[in-house]
């Protein structure tokens, strides 16, 4: 860090102050609120008061603004996100009553949804403002769409090395990620890295879904070709001015969403608190109010889910009083309007390991559809999303949290021999597939490196020029997911080919378009339809027990009760 320290004063300081001052948390940045400009997490006098008025089946007033004064966000939300039939009744319910419904195990998720679908952004804000962080977690436990929580991982490489991406994806899939995401340093590498991610994922655990974050057109093309399985990085914003700066509107984003749906491809939008004020266009509204507008915009566009939890702007709410509570609240809001929620925890957040952990608790403890979106399945130095809140160094800590608190964060401990085996298989499968597709060769030395590597520094350097030509040829030749299946089959990786083919077949059935859909190891889509969250108080809903709990009891070093001179793992 090249940051300058605060100017030293001449006054003598205590030894204790010196120690405290040198703690990592004091490398983080904290700022005062400035609500007039929107630099405030969720409690601002400048946010609008809730109101709604319906005339002739049309919302003519939204949160104190008449239709004539609507900006395009208001228009989109009023016309597409709010249920006109029920809105006046829902809005008439006092906010504290709705807040209580959210935490009351006696009120079903379905009953809550009947109310929330008629709420305006300001009303939703008014409701969650009443809730402390424990109540927010209780609400999340009930409102999460899918009953079974899950996790998402990142698999990237600082050198865009496809072998590394494949090996780390395989390990990540084996450790439990239900979705894997990659992105690039050099964008032209994308086709090779996306292929590597897909192959690695299907080696690690059949049915894991993959995506490659790129500019929108290429991301869509890779999806349509079946090289990736879903999409997530379609960003939306809470003010008209930020949307316009990005040459976009809610309608253009909705159009893109329907392009994915037309091919049976799972997709979700991305938004988060702090993005508008970060760009200087918060229009004087609190971060959470603007995020609630995003959430309703996503709802109105008809997408099944949203990645939120501040995401790449986490440093902004993170520096504000109550900021992490607001981040927990935005996750809850996504869930309480029946969207899948991939709940952040996916960016470098703090210099302090304790603070990183504390920031995770509101998502880990109640469980969300994806606790991280995602967890870095590579060392943070290799993370091309600019680092995540957790990385490979933290795998054992994460597994220990799960065991200590008996909560399911979607991961598990896996023995090293098993890990080495899938890493090798992933590298071998990619080696064979590259040869089949006439792509630049992967040497045995690279495969060997992939088995034992930690970071991109542990791999032989690739011939980048040849790789980029190969990547271009993948696009030029029109290589599709089916070509990958054929290649894997032809080179003897029949099981991997079948895994991938089964994932691709979901395009036809469209089951992955359902809210919160993931695939089980048996390729059964698990979504809010067939795995609906039925939490109704103690003893109900998702419980970490049985085989899965036995699995999570395992750690790297656990002393055997049978023979205390040995360890089990």
């Amino acid at each position, binding site marked *: 860090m090249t940051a300058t320290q605060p100017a030293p004063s001449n006054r003598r300081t205590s030894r204790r102050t010196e120690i405290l001052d040198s703690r990592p948390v004091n490398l983080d940045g904290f700022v005062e609120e400035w609500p007039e400009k929107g630099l405030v997490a969720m409690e601002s006098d400048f946010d609008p008061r809730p109101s709604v008025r319906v005339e002739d089946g049309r919302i003519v007033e939204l949160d104190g603004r008449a239709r004539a004064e609507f900006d395009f966000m208001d228009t989109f939300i009023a016309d597409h996100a709010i249920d006109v039939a029920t809105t006046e009744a829902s809005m008439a319910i006092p906010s504290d009553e709705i807040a209580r419904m959210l935490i009351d195990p006696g009120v079903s998720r379905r009953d809550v949804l009947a109310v929330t679908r008629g709420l305006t952004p300001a009303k939703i804000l008014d409701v969650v403002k009443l809730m402390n962080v424990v109540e927010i977690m209780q609400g999340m436990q009930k409102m999460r769409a899918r009953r079974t929580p899950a996790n998402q991982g990142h698999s990237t490489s600082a050198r865009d090395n496809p072998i590394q991406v494949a090996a780390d994806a395989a390990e990540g899939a084996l450790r439990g990620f239900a979705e894997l995401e990659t992105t690039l340093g050099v964008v032209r590498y994308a086709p090779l890295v996306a292929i590597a991610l897909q192959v690695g994922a299907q080696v690690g655990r059949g049915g894991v879904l993959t995506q490659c974050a790129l500019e929108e057109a290429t991301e869509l093309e890779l999806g349509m070709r079946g090289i990736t399985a879903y999409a997530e990085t379609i960003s939306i914003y809470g003010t008209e001015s930020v949307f316009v700066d990005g040459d976009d509107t809610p309608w253009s984003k909705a159009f893109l969403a329907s392009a994915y749906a037309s091919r049976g491809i799972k997709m979700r939008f991305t938004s988060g608190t702090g993005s508008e004020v970060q760009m200087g266009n918060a229009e004087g509204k609190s971060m959470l109010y603007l995020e609630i507008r995003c959430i309703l915009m996503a709802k109105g566009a008809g997408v099944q889910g949203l990645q939120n939890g501040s995401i790449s702007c986490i440093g902004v709410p993170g520096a504000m009083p109550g900021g992490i509570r607001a981040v927990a609240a935005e996750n809850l809001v996504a869930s309480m309007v029946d969207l899948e929620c991939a709940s952040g925890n996916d960016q470098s957040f703090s210099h302090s390991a304790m603070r990183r952990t504390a920031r995770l608790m509101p998502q880990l403890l109640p469980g969300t559809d994806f606790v991280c979106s995602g967890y870095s399945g590579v060392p943070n130095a290799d993370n091309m999303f600019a680092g995540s809140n957790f990385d490979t160094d933290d795998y054992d800590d994460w597994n220990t949290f799960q065991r200590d608190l008996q909560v399911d964060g979607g991961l598990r401990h896996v023995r090293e021999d098993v890990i080495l085996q899938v890493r090798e298989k992933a590298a071998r499968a990619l080696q064979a597939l590259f*040869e089949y597709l006439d792509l630049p060769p992967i040497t045995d030395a690279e495969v060997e490196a992939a088995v034992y590597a930690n970071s991109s520094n542990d791999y032989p350097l690739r011939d980048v020029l040849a790789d980029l030509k190969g990547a271009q040829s993948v696009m030029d030749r029109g290589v599709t997911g089916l070509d990958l299946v054929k290649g894997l089959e032809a080179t003897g990786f029949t099981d991997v080919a079948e895994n991938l083919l089964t994932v691709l077949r979901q395009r036809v059935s469209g089951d992955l378009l359902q809210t919160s859909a993931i695939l089980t190891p048996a390729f059964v889509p698990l979504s809010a339809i067939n795995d609906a969250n039925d939490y109704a108080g103690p003893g109900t809903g998702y419980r970490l027990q049985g085989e899965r709990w036995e699995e999570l009891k395992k750690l790297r070093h656990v002393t055997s009760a049978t023979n205390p001179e040995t360890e089990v793992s």
Partner: protein
Amino acid sequence: MDTRLVVGVDVGNSTTEACLARVGPDGAVTYLGTALKHTTGVKGTPENADGAVAAVREVLARAGATVGELHTVLLNEATPVISGLAMETITETIITESTMIGHNPATPGGEGLGVGVTVPIGELLGDGRDSERPVIVVVPHGWDFDDVAATLNSAVRDGVDVVAAVLAGDDAVLVTNRLEKRIPVVDEVAAVEKVPVGMLAAVEVAPPGRTIRTLSNSYGLATVFALDPAQTRQVSPVARALTGNRSAVVIRTPTGDVTDRLIPAGVLELRGAGKTLRVEVDAGADAIMDTLARAQPVDDVHGEPGTHVGGMLAQVRDTMTDVTGQPASEIAIHDVLAVDTIVPAEVRGGLAGEVALEHAVALAAMVSTDRSRMQAVADQVAAELGSSAGVGGVEGAMAVRGALTTPGVDRPVAVIDLGGGSTDAALLSASGETTAVHVAGAGELVTKLIASELALDDREVAENVKRYPLGKVESFYHLRHEDGTVEFVDEPLPPHVFARVVVMTPDGLVPVPTRHTLDAVRRVRREAKRRVFCVNAVRALRQVAPQGNLRALDFVVLLGGSALDFEIPDMIADALAPHGIVCGTGNIHGSEGPRNAVASGLVDAYAEEPG
């Protein structure tokens, strides 16, 4: 014999080409189409079968024919050579005792010559200093330019005779602009702390656009430092090293020196024609090539163990071992091409990261391999297609037959195939006999020469420089091509090419990261091509020409990927013109350009003598 459908397949290093033809009972050939696929696996290995089968299927599909109708597939016997590359610098410049600084900073300050004793700026205002003698001030890192100027001004006001300054930072213009007395200032001397203190030194800065006159002249140095003839002889390398610089510093130390020494690169041992000839590598490329010519045909080449050339050839053999699986001891090098080149290298003992242009020798070497397994490829192709398949002929012989289909060509005809690793030539004599040779050195060596002479770290850039013409982006709306013509564009050019020398690739403009001008880059590119392709074209043709006489050749046809290059065919034609040869790029069947010569040659050979 009835009418038969046959496919000729040419497996090359990177592409596999197919040619489909109908051969009539009378041996008349009707060409039906061609196809091009990526080669699968290393050329000459059974993995080639996949690419060959794919090419056959495609050419059949294009002509609307089925595998069932196919009579036979004819494969080429691959050129039995593999090539490797190595490069070593053979000179080295060393400065001892920090005798001189000659790194040519972009912006020195002031002008003129200052001769005095070196004094650190920190001691300039101290007590006990000797204010009588002229002083050259040495300024370490961390001094702000305003502070330096203020200190020098105040020293001068105190009566110190400051005549020049040497700075660590890039501050020379800033400092001289603030001085009351104009002095020459040399800056960006990274290791300024190594400048010896209390020594007599001279600093010279020439006006913009000029070069220094005194310190680059041996007698100038003798005058400045009052040297006797013996000492003058000793400092003459310093003067030479500073020639062409705009600024320089020379420090007189008791035994300081600048040497330009030859690195003992070792001896190259050439065995052939029953002789073993030895040549010192540092004698240069010409000497090596002369010696090589005396040992033709070469059986093997060795480098003296423990020397640079020993290492170079060991490196080549290692690569061959990786590719062929043959043990290094069984690998015989049958040809080498040595090329003199210049490599910018940091000077040892330099204080400012001085770079000297050192001499280097690049060696391309070529190995014969007996491991071509084309018959195995043919067997596999036959099995997959259910038709017959065989090896129809040797590559060079087939290429020259194919070349004969180029309009305007007649026997005797020679072909030159400019590849990546080797340059191949073959001759079809008037009586129908063919001779084929392979010589070391081709496209990859050109790329390497371009990369090292321009100090490009990125092979992709060097490859682009080799392949495409250059331009210079002069504004966002116009660029100047290397031939001097100017092109205007409607949309502004992208910022990353602004003011840069660029390569005009089909994918757009790619900047060349270099301080060299467009002309310099162009010169390096053309020289590299001339030294490899033109030299090798002549060398290879001499080996196939009757009695080595180029005048005995009438037609020379260029084939292969390099024949599509924008300037190589012209350069080779120019090189061959004095020998009265018609030389040009092939046009197989009058339609295929320089491609598909081997594949159609296979068909023609079959038509003459159906197997």
